[in-house]
């Protein structure tokens, strides 16, 4: 670790986030007026940009609550005077939607739990311990992210088929196969990101623990784990999204077992050869996005510090 990296390493996790105090307020008295105008302009620009970025999402929700005839209209308007929940009703009454939702939740949570456990151990080793092949391991973590996922579907398909011959629950047509692949694909980035959180815990703490006679595993679980927990939460969002949004593997691995399909596949019901049911597609997309967005906003501060920390240490 270089000196420069060490200086910027301890990321102030509480400071960088939605509610943190703006530093620009601390200016010399003579320039306050000027600053205030500048800040006003900056804030205006910020809000406009936020509006533009959020617009597609606004349109998604709006389309979902518009009545059918307004959705397919040659003159779309950015409001509706007759909001209706029909599209949501259609999306929610897809046969077995509850089941699909449950499947998606089960897969995503299993992936999150497993990947956090495994990534925490790996990140601790990669940050706290010196061993040969450490740098190689780090580089490999970057390299495996470069392999196009789509190209791996064929080898993975056969791997899962063989797995299924001995452990049916993890074979094709079962949710276990999805858990396994998403675990594998979300792990490299999760380890990479958790490294920053582990590195932010002062080394002195470990030395103090060692002097107190704590074993390495005591330190790991009693001291390090609670300190890194916020980072685990932030990292888990990304693993969650990965598993939650997947379409490719759900389509490829769940060959014919309708009872094991996930939410993104359920949305396909509304993509029709003749006329797409835009209202229901948007309602379904809204329903799929909301849980992730809530999750995101809740851990937002941790995420900010985590992303910055992930490249240091």
């Amino acid at each position, binding site marked *: 670790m270089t000196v420069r990296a060490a200086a910027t390493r301890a990321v102030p996790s509480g400071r960088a986030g939605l509610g943190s105090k703006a530093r620009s307020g601390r200016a010399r008295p003579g320039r306050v007026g000027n600053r205030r105008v500048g*800040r006003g302009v900056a804030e205006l620009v910020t809000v406009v*940009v936020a509006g533009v970025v959020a617009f597609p999402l606004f349109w*998604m929700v709006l389309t979902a609550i518009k009545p059918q005839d307004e959705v397919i209209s040659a003159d779309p308007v950015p409001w509706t005077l007759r909001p209706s929940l029909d599209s949501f009703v259609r999306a929610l009454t897809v046969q077995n939607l509850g089941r699909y939702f449950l499947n998606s939740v089960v897969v995503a949570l299993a992936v999150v739990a497993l990947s956090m456990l495994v990534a925490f151990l790996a990140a601790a080793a990669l940050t706290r311990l010196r061993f040969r092949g*450490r740098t190689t391991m780090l*580089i490999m973590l970057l390299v495996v992210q470069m392999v*196009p996922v*789509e190209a791996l579907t*064929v080898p993975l398909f056969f791997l899962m088929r063989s797995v299924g011959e001995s452990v049916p629950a993890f074979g094709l047509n079962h949710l276990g196969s999805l858990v396994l692949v998403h675990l594998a694909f979300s*792990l490299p980035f999760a380890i990479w990101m958790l490294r920053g959180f582990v590195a932010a815990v002062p080394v002195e703490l470990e030395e103090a623990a060692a002097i107190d006679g704590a074993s390495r595993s005591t330190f790991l679980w009693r001291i390090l784990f609670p300190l890194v927990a916020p980072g685990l939460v932030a990292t888990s969002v990304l693993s969650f999204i990965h598993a939650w949004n997947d379409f490719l593997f759900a389509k490829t691995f769940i060959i014919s077992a309708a009872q094991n399909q996930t939410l993104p596949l359920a949305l396909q019901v509304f993509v029709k050869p003749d006329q797409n049911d835009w209202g229901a597609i948007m309602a379904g997309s809204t329903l799929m996005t909301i849980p992730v967005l809530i*999750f995101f906003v809740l851990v937002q501060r941790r995420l900010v510090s985590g992303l910055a920390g992930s490249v240091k240490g």
Partner: protein
Amino acid sequence: MTAGPATRGQGRAALAYLAPALLVLVALLGYPVYQLVVISLFDYGQEQVSGGAPLTFLGLANYGTLLGSAKFWSVLGHTVGFAAVCVVGSLVLGAALAVLATRVRPWARGCLFLAALGAWATPAVAGSTIWLFLFDANFGLVNSLLGLDGFSWTYGKWTAFGLVAAEVVWCSFPFVMITLFAGIRAIPPEVLEAAALDGASGWRTATSVVLPLLRPLLIVVTIQSIIWDFKVFTQVYVMTGGGGIAGRNLVLNVYAYQEAFAASEYGLGSAIGVVMTLILLAVTGFYLRALRRSGEVL
């Protein structure tokens, strides 16, 4: 750290901690990647898969076919150009907005971050569909506002690429913005104050103080963006209907899927996958070397 008994003890502990991760990565990524390389050396189609025809070892013939095809080179060119636009777009937008976010009060920043997180959280399939609907030739809001009724954005080669690139930038700039924002906030205030006391202008502070401090962060953000944008699949597949008119909007990943996997040419498709990985490796290797030269250690 010095080598010796302590290091050896650490090595053993490291192995124990790394074992689960290694097991997962080797079995579920390493082995499939190995299979990918092996498959790319064979004539491997649906008949070979189901055991109806014997396997033929081709050596590098799949790569020869690939590199000898004009279509591959044109698709490669498109992919590089498309990825470059997306990377530059999300970096510039992300960096500009990160700087902007440090200059405004929390409420404004809150709005921006909430919108950005929304864009990030949207599933790729849903995001592509929304954009497609906004730009629909007949029912889309954009055409209605611009008075371009009936104009098809997905028909023309450049409008289609532009539309997809805009969507990709939309959902990938938040990562850049939030990371860089956190990086800027992590710069000790004393450093900036010292620069201000020395009479450095805002621009000079940015280029000679902030930028060097953010360099490692920028490099990793760039690498991640390159990795993601070079491999864009869902957006292109959904928004151009699998590669556009006569395949003129194909990028490598979709090309591999269309020409090879859909047509059961798994050997050829795997070769494309391997070539893509090698290209990304070369690009990243370049960056890692730059990283090392500047004194950064992973």
